[in-house]
């Protein structure tokens, strides 16, 4: 296990990238299908956190775009507040980056 450490970590990071991508697509394709979002809420939450952790501001904003209304309409008020605030920060970062560019 020790010999393959780098390889293992690379598998982990690559698969994390794909995991975030899959659930972002899922949320965008299911944006009006509450039961689809509800079913995968725990994974959407995980993927969202990884997007934050990896400073993928654009992905964070897209997640929010896809799920924000669902949180508002289906009683996930805490998630609405927390995701909303995080997404707002991400959008600010995006704006700053664009301004700096």
């Amino acid at each position, binding site marked *: *296990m020790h010999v393959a*450490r780098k390889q*293992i*970590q690379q*598998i*982990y990071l*690559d*698969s*994390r990238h*794909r*995991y975030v*991508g*899959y*659930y972002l697509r*899922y949320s965008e394709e299911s944006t009006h299908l*509450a*039961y*689809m979002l*509800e*079913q*995968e809420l*725990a*994974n959407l*939450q*995980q993927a969202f*956190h*990884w997007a*934050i*952790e990896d400073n993928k501001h654009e992905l964070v904003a897209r997640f929010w775009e896809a799920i924000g209304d669902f949180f508002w*309409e*289906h*009683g*996930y*008020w*805490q*998630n609405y507040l*927390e*995701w909303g605030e*995080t997404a707002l920060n991400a959008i600010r970062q995006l704006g700053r980056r664009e301004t700096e560019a």
Partner: protein
Amino acid sequence: MQPVDFAIITALAKEAQAVVSRLEQPTTRRFEAEDIRTYHYGTISFQAPGQFYRVVVITLPNMGTVSAANAVTDTIARWSPRFVLMVGIAGGIPQGDLDLGDVVIADQVVGYDYGKVTESGIQPRPRVYPASALLLDRIHNFWDNAWEQQVNVARPVNARRPISKRWVGPIASGNKVIASTEFRNQLLAQWPKLLAVEMEAEGVFGAIFDRPHIRGALVIRGICDMADERKSDEWQEYAANAAAAFVVAFLKSSPVEPIDASAEERQTEPSQKYHITINEAHGVVIGDQAHIVQRFTSEPVARERGFEVASSSPAQFMEIPGKTYRTLIGREPIIGDIIAALRDPGGKWLVGIDGMGGIGKTAMANEVIDRSQAEHLFDMVVWESAPKLERLHDTQAIGGLTFDTVLDGIGRQLGALDVPKLKSQDKEARVRTLLHNQRVLVVLDNLETAHESQNEIARRLQPFLNPGKALMTSRHRFKGDVYAVHLSGLDETSAIRFIYQEAEEKNISRIKVAEQSEFQQIAQSTGGSPLALKLVVGQLGHLSLDTVLNQLSKIRPPDSDTNEDDYLLFYKGIFFSSWQILSDAGKQLLISMAHFAPGVGGTSEAIQATSDLANDVLTRSIDELWRLSFLEIGESPSLNKLRYYLHALTQNFILSDVVQILK
């Protein structure tokens, strides 16, 4: 009403419970305007994908042939079964080494009550009913003895043999409780091959006698006493369970073609269909005379089970996780205690189950829900689960469980979507009203990972509960006004039974040659932890028993006082042995799956996208991980797809020891 394949008639509640606990998707149905019965409807699936029998189980209000005949008549009118099975307990007749706990299948039923009264006494004129020739043929060709391992209650200690056997022969039936050697011998004199005596089968056969659409009946009885002066109740539960285990195993062998559901459905008038609505609080539920009796986990499943689903209201699905076990072994006494505590209106409002990770707390909560629903203890069940994932970094704090979010979850699941937006005082008042207006079981799972103290959450929740109750699980012990149950490892007998079941499911043949002492060693080395037992059985698919036992001997087994760090070390020792067996593709899949929420996992589509494995490799790797018990497979509650997921401890091992990213 859609016809069922089998109606199972039982005389006692314990007999019914033993069968119903083995049904898939059990629901309880009543038709009070038309009859007095409670019908437990469910399915029993067999090996062919998507194939299952529709089954209805009833129990009688009284023992005896008249009660049985009435119940069968009602059941036939309501459900049009193709076959009727009488399942339960009976008194045995000494024949060969027939013993307590054995299962007897009647090839004919002798109604011994009939006779002619003459001056010189009563001349017996028994009626004889042959069993269904078709089912009897299938019984004679059903050779699998694995049913004996499916008996999930403790075998009384006074058994002559360690295992039960099955027998086929005549059974006498009549309205007498027989506790007399003399009477037993009188029957035996008339019917030398008689195997058992009981009180209902004659009524069952009498009721179906002139029903041409019923293809036959069969009686299956577990022997609970020997119909003599020593008659006692000691073996009743085991015998009832043995009979149920046999019947379900027999049906799982698909002895007859199931009813063609689609064809039957086409013949059913729409007005006769049972109506289901999608309820905001419950997902798909069956409405029965203004009270909700059962849920289906999903609309597709409800449709598959033959119910019409109204599509008028938006679907929101209950957050109860799917079952990951076939039968819970060795937990009956504790489940009984918990159900009794939930049933007791004067008892504590809070019930807490604690125990180390992998010991089966969530499975037990799931089982308690099923049992409490079968008894109609609650109108609704709300399930809130704290995330199990180890904290990776500060941002993971989002979404943790607090008292406030518990109230949000209760409100949301009871359909009051405005609750989360209310201020604290208003929120508490609203949830209090919601919970006081109906009997709600609030389940809080994994409280050890809550953001607030579990005892503080419990203390604050208690005044909200009456008339409902709360069931909580945690790795930490509960304090305060809680009916607390500590879950420890399975005892040796149950652990061995568990090993058998697991090995059978995963087709691991090494178990068959193991000796009792080796089983005992596995049971002791794993501390009876179901998760550890599963992992060890998985290893036996690849490694010799000696190697596995040698590896286990190097790990200190947990006991009830083991702290969290120590039992994590214990599991890691076992995980590491399993990890070393894995192929490269299996390792890649396992690492990829560590991203998914534990206990939730993902569909094959999500896992393929994440792992980037080719379809055939993915299929092989899933099978490999499942056989090694790294991975669980369950049905998606609402998407009607299989889900693949890791236990939280497995995920912890991957993240902290394999990838080494946990802080």
